[in-house]
């Protein structure tokens, strides 16, 4: 009897080991990273992510977007995004004012363009940038038009085809740069700046409500508290706190706001939070657990990391800012892996731009 029980135990253990092995390799979806290369004949470079963080180009990479990039514009304008629910990848083409849509093969990472891609925004990016983001329910894609100061809203069909909704584009008060849709799907936050650069200093985030039919209504602009220019925003999973990075040439500056149920923003105690040195702190990103806020500093080649308290306040982590490796580092856009164990940083290797 004891022998049989041992056999059963071993058999069960083998099943468990097999299940874990298969879960972690053959049957599991892969981990991939995609870049908007922003090239004249624009492409997406695609890499698989090894368990040690090593990147390997996947078959078929780079993939043509059939659009035109421009290799320039604001750093915080996020030109690539994924619809969480449907495995669609969205890539903006600044030079041709359109958005390419791909299906992601969850096993291989390969990309297949959807029928009709790319889709025209109907507005002008002014060769500056088009930021893209989807609503949490996957019904709408938002695309900002930095050159024409407005926002295109597309409805997203189940096959990935985009259609501009009635009323689109929706005007912004200033040129849109970094954007974020609140995880509850109620609001679109837009960091606004002045393009082309002028003597005018713009330091604000404009918040919009998002209706069930996708239409946007401005709730007004909310000023940054520092001396820089608000360029990028992120919102925590509870849709309670919003963080904005202020580009400037001295310290890393982050504004922190509480978000009211009507979408109005109020700076929390201690905001703005400063950490030095951090030259041109354009891009902000919360970790998936909302416990860490990362900021990329383009001109000081570093990443600043803050600990996020339950009341939304920030404290710089020991060892921060963290230097970038490489001959000429230039950290720009960031993303984390779904589980938060990796931080990916786009490095465009430009000097002084």
């Amino acid at each position, binding site marked *: 009897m004891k022998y049989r029980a041992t056999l059963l135990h071993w058999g069960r253990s083998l099943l468990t080991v097999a299940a874990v092995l298969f879960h972690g390799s053959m049957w599991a979806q892969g*981990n*991939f990273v995609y870049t908007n*290369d922003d090239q004249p004949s624009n492409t997406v470079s695609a890499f698989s992510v090894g368990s040690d*963080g090593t990147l390997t180009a996947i078959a078929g990479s780079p993939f043509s977007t059939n659009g035109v990039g421009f290799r320039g514009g604001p750093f915080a*304008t*996020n030109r690539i995004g994924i619809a969480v629910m449907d495995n669609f990848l969205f890539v903006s083409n600044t030079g041709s004012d359109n958005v390419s849509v791909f299906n992601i093969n969850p096993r291989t990472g390969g990309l297949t363009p959807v029928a009709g891609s790319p889709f025209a925004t109907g507005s002008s990016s002014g060769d500056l940038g088009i930021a893209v983001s989807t609503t949490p329910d996957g019904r709408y894609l938002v695309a900002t038009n930095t050159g024409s100061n407005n926002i295109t809203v597309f409805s997203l069909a189940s096959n990935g085809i985009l259609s501009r909704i009635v009323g689109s584009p929706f005007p912004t008060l200033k040129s849109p740069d970094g954007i974020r849709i609140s995880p509850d799907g109620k609001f679109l936050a837009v960091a606004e700046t002045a393009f082309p650069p002028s003597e005018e200093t713009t330091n604000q985030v404009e918040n919009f409500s998002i209706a069930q039919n996708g239409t946007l209504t401005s709730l007004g602009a909310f000023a940054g508290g520092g001396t820089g220019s608000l360029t990028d925003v992120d919102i925590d999973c509870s849709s309670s706190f919003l963080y904005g990075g202020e580009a400037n040439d001295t310290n890393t500056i982050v504004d922190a706001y509480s978000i009211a149920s009507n979408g109005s923003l109020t700076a929390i105690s201690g905001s703005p939070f400063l950490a030095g040195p951090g030259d041109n702190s354009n891009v902000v990103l919360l*970790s998936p657990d909302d416990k860490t806020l990362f900021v990329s500093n383009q001109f000081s080649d570093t990443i600043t990391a803050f600990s996020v308290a339950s009341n939304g306040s920030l404290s710089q982590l020991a060892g921060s800012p963290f230097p970038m*490796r490489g001959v000429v580092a230039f950290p720009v856009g960031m993303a984390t892996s*779904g589980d938060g164990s990796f931080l990916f940083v*786009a490095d465009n290797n430009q000097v002084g731009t």
Partner: protein
Amino acid sequence: MKSSISMFNVAKDGTIAEVSGSPFSTGQSSGLHSLTAYPPKSCVLPVGIQIKPPASAPVVINPQSKGKIPVAILSTVTFNAVTQVSPNSLTFGHTGNEVSLAFCDTRGEDVNGDGLVDLVCYFNTRQTEFAAWDTTAVLKGQTITGRKIRASESIRTVPK
């Protein structure tokens, strides 16, 4: 000069350390501003389900049935469905928003033989609002800490 991707390990305390071999060249000319990861960061926790365990997908569902559909929310090594899912938050059906929960067996059961106890809940078929052309069933809910969960599985419907 080529664009590249710098890779960092993120420690539990949020500190970062660049991985060996980083940065990785994209092979493209400079100008890289933006990247994204798959699976993406999400405030909704994706979970696995098995409908009518131990049946394999796509399971057959008769939308006109007066019975109940058992659905197992699968545990993993990092997610205990029995202790972490709030049963009363669960909705299941055509869109995932259908209020169709009958009850959950909170004792749990290992339905897929992986040695981990799964949460099995039962949903009233007629309240799931499945239609004849449906090919996907969606489950939504929350963890006991309030984080949203979502799962989907292939189905095949048959007429009465």
